[in-house]
């Protein structure tokens, strides 16, 4: 006991000492890292950023992020080590089992009138959670343009980094990793993967109990439903508009027909579902099912490397393409360490950080930066990343399908649970 208390005390002491040294040496330590970043922005922006760095020094950023993936957790730890060394900004990863927990926390704080000292400094967020926080005005910003590294992003109005589930990002969140919906199979057991939703029905009929999807309340469960909807609906462009009763009924009729048909052939006759995609991948690894899902094309390669998936795990995508979106980080309106959170967000956009992240031995997530905005040296770092047999190239992945308007997701969830919850 005393040992632990001591170690915490020494840590505190160490932090205070390092604060002191940093504040003494700060002009030196900043200039070495920031000259290149600031070069292209104008002088007043550079000054603002310098101010932000100064304010951030010594802060600890509480980053609320889903904690179910060890490699992501390790990456976040690495980010914290880097920002601590470079900017004296520590990162504490608050591991969530669902991102909504962080949203609830901010809501509860607002309830209690806690408008400045919130527990959440930064959230890994996108889609419905973003929409909810934006609507409730729970987010800080716009701040993306304040980050020097935002120059590497394609921020034109309809680019992937400017729209989150058809909702305008409006500078309230910063992209950090690219996500593509993919299926995973054990290539030893499945030679011929079903490359469309119609074929998936036939496959399920022939292989009863070998297919399932995560619970619909889970992000991956809804994604699967949306993927099916886009493929089956008569006119996918309708999905880009906010939903109304009429458009919902017409657009989803074929989806429900398809789901009614496939449900009895699902794992446990479609009466029970895995909690999330990690559990689903574990079931694939255990041999309980043959097809799993991920929102990360590098998932099988990463899973093989860490012993979580069999070496024969491979990606497949429907021939029409799959949903893609971007993972963002956002800062709540009442964050205690806004400056620090911006430093961390900016660090995530550093080309070296993105390349490190894309490395299959680290995380294997595709970079969110616009390749055209990188210089030759930076592009070279990406080109020389190691590859893996289980890692598809961007070309293998085919076209990216647009996320429907977020209101569709809410409706899909509600209707699914009305139709299929006992």
């Amino acid at each position, binding site marked *: 006991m005393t040992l632990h208390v001591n170690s915490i005390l020494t840590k505190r002491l160490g932090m205070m000492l390092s604060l002191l040294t940093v504040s003494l040496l700060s002009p030196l330590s900043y200039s070495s890292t920031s000259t290149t970043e600031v070069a292209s922005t104008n002088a007043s922006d550079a000054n603002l950023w310098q101010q932000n760095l100064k304010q951030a020094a010594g802060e600890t950023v509480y980053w609320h992020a889903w904690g179910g993936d060890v490699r992501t957790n390790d990456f976040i730890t690495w980010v914290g080590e880097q920002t601590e060394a470079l900017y004296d900004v520590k990162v504490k990863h608050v591991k969530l089992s669902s991102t909504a927990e962080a949203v609830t926390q901010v809501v509860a704080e607002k309830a209690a009138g806690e408008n400045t000292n*919130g527990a959440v400094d930064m959230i890994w967020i996108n889609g419905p959670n973003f929409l909810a926080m934006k609507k409730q005005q729970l987010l800080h910003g716009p701040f993306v343009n304040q980050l020097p590294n935002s120059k590497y992003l394609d921020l034109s109005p309809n680019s992937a980094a400017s729209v989150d589930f058809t909702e305008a990002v409006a500078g309230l969140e910063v992209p950090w990793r690219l996500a593509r919906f993919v299926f995973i199979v054990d290539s030893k057991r499945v030679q011929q993967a079903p490359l469309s939703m119609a074929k998936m029905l036939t496959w399920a009929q022939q292989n009863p109990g070998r297919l399932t999807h995560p619970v619909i309340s889970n992000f991956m469960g809804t994604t699967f439903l949306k993927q099916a909807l886009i493929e089956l609906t008569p006119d996918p462009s309708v999905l880009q508009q906010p939903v109304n009763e009429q458009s919902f009924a017409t657009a989803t009729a074929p989806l429900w027909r398809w789901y009614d048909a496939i449900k009895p052939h699902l794992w446990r006759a479609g009466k*029970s579902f895995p909690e999330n995609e990690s559990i689903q991948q574990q079931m694939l690894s255990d041999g309980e099912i043959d097809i799993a899902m991920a929102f990360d094309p590098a998932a099988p390669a990463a899973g093989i490397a860490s012993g979580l998936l069999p070496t024969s795990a491979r990606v497949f995508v429907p021939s029409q393409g799959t949903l893609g979106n971007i993972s963002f980080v956002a800062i709540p309106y009442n964050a205690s360490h806004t400056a620090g959170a911006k430093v961390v967000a900016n660090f995530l956009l550093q080309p070296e950080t993105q390349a490190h992240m894309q490395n299959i031995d680290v995380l294997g997530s595709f970079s969110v930066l616009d390749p055209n905005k990188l210089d030759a040296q930076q592009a070279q770092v990406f080109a020389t990343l190691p590859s893996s047999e289980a890692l598809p190239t961007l070309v293998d992945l085919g076209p990216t399908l647009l996320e429907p308007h977020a209101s569709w997701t809410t409706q899909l969830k509600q209707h699914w649970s009305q139709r299929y919850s006992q």
Partner: protein
Amino acid sequence: MSLSSWPKWLMLTALAVGILVPVLAGLGETIWAAFGILPAIGRHTLSVDAWHQLFELPGLVTSLRLSLVSGFGATLVSLMLALFGSAWVYHTSEKESSLSRLKPFSQAILVPILAAPHAAIAIGLAFLLAPSGWLARLFSPWLTAWDLPPNLATVQDLWGLSLTLGLIIKELPFLWLVSLVALKQIDVSRQLNLTQSMGYSHTAAWCKIIVPQLYPLIRLPVFVVLVYALSTVDMAQLLGPNNPPTLALATMRWYNDTNVQLLLPASAASVLLGVLIAASVLLWEVVVRTVMFTSKVMIRSGDRTGKYSIFTGVLTTALPITVMLGLLSLLVLALWSITWRWSFPDALPTSWSYNYWLQLITNVPLALQHSLIVALISSGLALTLAIAWLEVQDRFGGHFYKITLWFIYLPLLVPQIAFLYGLKVGFLRLGLNGSMMTVMWAHLLFVFPYTMLSLVDSWRALDKRYVQVATSLGRSSWSCFWRIKLSLLLRPLLLAWAIGIAVSISQYLPTLMIGAGRVESLTIEAVSLASGADRRLVGVYGLLQALVPLLAYSFALLLPRLVALKK
């Protein structure tokens, strides 16, 4: 109120402020929200919309049914097994079976399961029972001919049976040990001798004479089990069905939904859960009293030939299986923690790795540090408070004895969910945001009653004549307190402390909700990891979670022996 009894009033005030106020304030916030008032999301008017919304949520009836089946099932079966287990400990038969040789060790066997948090047992059990779990792997494919796991719902089944089993496994040791302690207040062996000499069998004697005397002594622990089983979130998440889940888990999900408007029906659901639990406790008590009354009437016939054989047959089989499953659940966690890959249907890991343990040693996780600090301080505080309260009762008499006892046990008898969200908002209002201190306070709400629960009987069973003798020899009451009471009660005191540690380590919701993510804990880590795919890491954390309380128990059991040896 006389001036000399100020310690008593001080204690009462401390209890009221420390326990009653937070629980009631938390409940209050929740009830307001259930009736439409939650300023945070711009709701300021009284309404019953939340209730309409709640009753329209799909699957509500199934959720209710699941909660009731697992709650009553788990309580009933674990109580039966605990009573049967206690009977077995007192059964002296001339034929020594191999099992009865375990009798002297029965408590030691139960301690790991008692010490391990609910989540650890649940995680282990889930892997044990799953169609691709360890049991299936042990018997495949040579016996079952399964090359691939079968499509059977052996965990997270729709009736919540695996959840019920998990609860039984975890609650049996608690009720069993509580019964064994309580039985020390009853002259069991002579009463059994007497009853058997009148021609009643051991089982008949146990059911007709011992159980009716024992039950009133363990009524409160049984209620605690019933309430826990009806309101558990972490176990339901790991072992229960999820479409829809139990009422408690469904409530938690609504609280955590992206759609913040669901906070209102979530609060209504909390209130509903509270009502359900109150009604269940009442129903349980009514049934127990009816059974007791009927059995008293039946005793009058003097019938010695009760038909117990089927019953005892089932229990004889079920008891060792239940205990075995608990131990295997912990063992399989240990196995996973040193695995690299383990494919179906290999009976043992395909390849091994000590990586995670190495990582752990080189970089002690914050979760372990925080858990230890919170556990040590809250259990220490709880023990001090418990001793202070009992001593004050001894010296100043207890006018309010019964009622204060109910205050103390209140947090165990109200569903956690129903007041934790409100308590969190309350703490936030006071500016106590997610600090170590508030988490300790929240833990204390649960650690203190369990500490009391385990200490109160031993304290009151202490022969007061020792103290009288010492006082008559001119000892001051303080010297009596230190030299007589505390040293005679060393063993139960240490045990109560160890139970406090175990309870603190196992808290999931209080740490999660009150800690706002800033205070980490082994249990949060284990449960959130269990929602991911890395069983190896889950194994490490699950095992750590079980090891810390186990060390505390071992310390509590060994220290008195060392002291005795020295003397």
